[in-house]
């Protein structure tokens, strides 16, 4: 085996990774501060100090992201090179804009965490939140399957632990345990799929995989798809199962309601927003870019591909999520089923993007619509979970009934929560409506052959939106139509500003969606067009591993 010496790392590229590096180091600082200078102080005072310090992390990320804009392009070593570190990590507009979104969500989650004393170990808790954010940022930027797997693991391992952080509550330990068992099985399935894909294509780079698949499809003269390719189909299925767990898509959703209900509200919010956001972006990169040649036809033509599988998952996910949410009494559990349902809607958007990719028209617009929906969903969901943090602080419980009478006691926040619920239903004039409309309208741009299946899915999604109105309306009824003598008390600042901010975003982007839509569209076009570095001396086009034909037989013939 000849030793291949990789080219030396260009350390100036690390500037583009500065948000991740900052958050990693800052997490260590928080740990040290908690066990060092603050040792022996009571929990609630450490909560405030460490929490305020933790907020410097996302603020620093904003400063780093804004610095190139202020200093002008090219300053500060901000090289426009799209790929970093041998092409494994993208430094494109997608990564930059989602770093900002993740930092914003992180700040909201940190604010909610400072609302009440649910643990003693504040240094470790906030460090885990920050490191989970690092995992999400790398996951969004990953252009290579190993980096993608490592980022996925970094994110979820931090979240397994954070979910179990609520002391004195059995259900929190159970939440962490269930999340761990389901999540690590999903990781193992994903990894096995990854290993098969590596064996089939000889590379782990997303763009390299795409090239190998395109070449082999051209060689065999087939239009693509997976028919007859047992190994490829297994690899795709296993990878879809892995992502399905992270997204909480039916039938891989069982952990989500238990984990969201049992974990502390800020951690549930972080799992529902940041983790889902980063996983869906990674899923889109893998499906729409690397595995696009294996998509297969939607209707009419023969040739199975992942499009049919994803369509079935999307239909089951949105229907099951909405029907199960109808029966829930706990606010966090209801939001868990709601997040399952939203994952289904987003998968429909991914399919629409795939079909437009195939037909070559406006692929970036369709993918951008999904990203837009994703950002709006994440912001509104974090705001809704902040209400659960408020109830847990004041009453020690978080049922929907515990919201009773808040419309009279805190009218401002109640109106903001109502706006969030309207946005989750998808009613105008909120951003939830605009983003859902934009995503589903993309279906009309699809091929005529593909449109019929997709239109069925969209019709199902619209029926589901109507069903979802019933359970979101129960929150509205509790807020405004019912009275109660129990009150969670006034909301602390850490809870009120995420709710207000999310509601402002829901109204603001509902009335004026253009800026966010445009930036998501450019992010999506970067995601779909990224390639390996153009002239890498040590990185020629990958070749498939010998003796393993990409389609047709299995390696057993050797």
């Amino acid at each position: 085996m000849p030793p291949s010496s990789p080219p030396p790392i260009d350390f100036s590229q690390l500037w583009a990774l500065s948000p991740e590096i900052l958050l990693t180091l800052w997490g260590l600082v928080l740990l040290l501060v908690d066990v060092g200078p603050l040792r022996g102080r009571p929990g609630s005072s450490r909560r405030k100090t460490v929490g305020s310090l933790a907020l410097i992390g996302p603020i620093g990320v904003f400063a780093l992201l804004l610095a190139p804009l202020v200093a002008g392009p090219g300053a500060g070593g901000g090289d426009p090179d799209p790929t970093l570190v041998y092409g494994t990590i993208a430094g494109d507009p997608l990564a930059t804009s989602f770093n900002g979104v993740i930092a914003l969500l992180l700040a909201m989650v940190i604010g909610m965490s400072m609302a009440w004393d649910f643990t003693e170990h504040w240094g470790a808790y906030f460090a885990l939140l920050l490191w989970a954010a690092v995992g999400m940022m790398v996951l969004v930027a990953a252009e290579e399957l190993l980096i993608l797997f490592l980022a996925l693991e970094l994110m979820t391992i931090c979240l397994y632990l954070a979910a179990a952080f609520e002391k004195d509550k059995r259900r929190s330990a159970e939440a962490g345990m269930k999340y761990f068992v389901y999540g690590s099985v999903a990781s193992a399935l994903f990894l096995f799929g990854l290993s098969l894909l590596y064996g089939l294509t000889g590379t782990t780079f997303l763009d390299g995989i795409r090239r190998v698949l395109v070449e082999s499809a051209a060689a065999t003269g087939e239009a693509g798809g997976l028919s007859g390719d047992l190994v490829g189909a297994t690899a795709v299925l296993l990878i879809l199962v892995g992502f399905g767990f992270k997204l909480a898509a039916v039938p891989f959703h069982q952990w989500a309601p238990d984990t969201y209900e049992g974990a502390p509200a800020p951690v549930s919010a972080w799992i529902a927003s940041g983790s889902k956001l980063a996983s869906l972006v990674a899923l889109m990169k893998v499906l729409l870019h690397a595995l696009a040649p294996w998509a297969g036809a939607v209707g009419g033509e023969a040739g199975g591909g992942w499009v049919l599988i994803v369509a079935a998952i999307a239909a089951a996910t949105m229907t099951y999520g909405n029907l199960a949410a109808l029966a829930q009494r706990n606010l966090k559990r209801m939001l868990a089923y709601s997040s399952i349902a939203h994952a289904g809607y987003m998968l429909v958007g991914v399919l629409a993007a795939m079909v437009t990719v195939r037909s070559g028209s406006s692929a970036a617009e369709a993918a951008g619509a999904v990203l837009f929906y994703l950002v709006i969903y994440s912001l509104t969901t974090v705001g809704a979970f902040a209400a659960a943090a408020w109830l847990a602080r004041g009453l020690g419980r978080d049922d929907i009934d515990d919201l009773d009478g808040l419309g009279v006691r805190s009218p401002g926040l109640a109106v903001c929560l109502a706006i969030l619920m309207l946005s989750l239903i998808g009613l105008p004039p909120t951003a939830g409506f605009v983003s859902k409309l934009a995503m589903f309208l993309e279906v009309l741009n699809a091929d005529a052959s593909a449109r019929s299946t997709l239109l069925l899915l969209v019709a199902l999604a619209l029926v589901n939106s109507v069903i979802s109105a019933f359970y979101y309306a129960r929150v509205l009824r509790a807020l405004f139509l019912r009275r109660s003598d129990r009150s969670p008390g006034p909301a602390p600042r850490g809870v009120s500003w995420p709710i207000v901010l999310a509601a402002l975003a829901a109204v603001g982007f509902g009335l004026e969606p253009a800026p966010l839509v445009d930036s998501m569209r450019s992010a999506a076009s970067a995601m779909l067009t990224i390639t390996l570095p153009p002239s890498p001396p040590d990185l020629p086009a990958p070749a498939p591993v010998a003796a393993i034909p990409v389609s047709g037989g299995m390696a057993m013939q050797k």
Partner: protein
Amino acid sequence: MTGGDIPLSWFLLFASAAFAIGLFGVLARRNAIAVLMAIELMLNAANINLVAFWRYSDSPGPEAGPIAGVMLAIFVITVAAAEVAVGIALILLCYRRWHAADVDRYDSLAG
């Protein structure tokens, strides 16, 4: 031919069998420690795949990019170690709450 006399398919069959045993263990075992061991088995099955594919590729080295299959396996071993550390910690936590290491007993959340 860069491998030994053992054909690649043997490694793949062995890895698939180990993976299937691991998956069965996760689904069938009720003891939390046994579930953890089964998960390890699945991760290591993928490792065998990665190393076998790397060893048997006819043109190893630069074609596969700077990250070769063995490197993937080394990273996966590290991840598996981290996962075990977290898993043991969570099992201990649950054991203190329930005085049982049986995953079926952790059922305060349902519905």
